[in-house]
């Protein structure tokens, strides 16, 4: 798999939300689901099936790694961490979205003015 962040773009909404949820700290699956719901004000709710399907792809692409935190006895809780490549991919996607946003503002402004 390429180390060039641009080759992973554009990211699907589920992948973007998962990567963003891991940007702050390592989280287990349920923690990711809660963080995604928090970040999107409850508008985007990931189901466990969707979450782990995407996590598996992210693990394969080395955008996320699995970590074993100290003192965690419950084997059902596996923690995931954003890799350096994952961080670069998120930054690249945010840059792409900002560009889309700027373009949208340019193209949508005359439409708004025309309507008013």
């Amino acid at each position, binding site marked *: 798999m390429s180390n060039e962040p641009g080759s992973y773009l554009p990211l699907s909404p589920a992948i973007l939300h998962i990567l963003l949820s891991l940007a702050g700290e390592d989280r*287990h*699956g*349920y923690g990711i*689901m809660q963080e995604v719901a928090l970040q999107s004000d409850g508008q985007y*709710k990931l*189901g*466990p*099936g*969707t979450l*782990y*399907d995407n996590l*598996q792809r992210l*693990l394969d692409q080395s955008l996320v*790694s*699995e*970590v*074993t935190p100290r003192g965690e006895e*419950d*084997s*059902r*809780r*596996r923690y995931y961490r954003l890799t350096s490549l994952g961080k670069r991919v998120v930054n690249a996607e945010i840059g792409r979205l900002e560009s889309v946003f700027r373009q949208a503002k340019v193209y949508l402004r005359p439409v708004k003015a025309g309507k008013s």
Partner: protein
Amino acid sequence: MTTRSLYRFLLRMHPAGFREHYEEQMLWIFDESVESRGTASLLLDALVSLVRQWVLRSVYWRHSRPTLAVDGSLALAETLHQNSRKLFRRAWGLNIIWLAEALVVLLMWPISIFLKFQFVGLAANATALFPGRKPVRGRPLRMNYISLFYYKNSQEFYRSQIEARRDGLRAWVGKAGGIGGAGGIVGLFFVLLVFWLLRPAIRTYMGLPNSSLDWDHSRYFVYNITVWALSFRLMAKVNERAAQVIQQEIDAMGESSMGGMK
């Protein structure tokens, strides 16, 4: 069937590779979020996931091998731990069948002396499972964490550890696992034949009437021996799988050293 059982059933329908990685985690999330999200959305999600994994990812899971986590030793220990838990669960699943049968036998009151022996046999069957789980549960690699920490850079040390574990598992599969295979079936028929021939002597010894030890009684005997053989077969499969996981780890070590990695 409770919604949790239904959810678990849907998870168990997933490809084996997916189950190994995520079944326990998804079940844990179900337990945590069932009240806030509702059962319908979680069941629907599991159903969609089931279709997705079989239709879109089945080739992937067929060719995947266990993901190595922080380092190989921890991942391997975790995989073995998961395997041993599965074995333990399955073994106890069989025990429940025996215990249910024992309950039925006890309810058939007044109980004959033959059935009392039968009850003892059921308990013996349940007990016989415990030596079987030893090869996997035995002395877990977790116990070697400290030594692995000091020898972290010594791949040879780690390799010798897991090769010994692999050989032990294979030896057990070859020896005891055969009980549930073709040898076991032949052995079963042999035992039945001996039992059938010895019926008059057993009747005399136990003071049983001539009508006893006919097929109605013998079928309990047949049933128990069959389940016993099947349980060994099952344990052999689980231990065989554990040996395969170790072999994959050894192969992966070989590949990484060929690639110039430590």
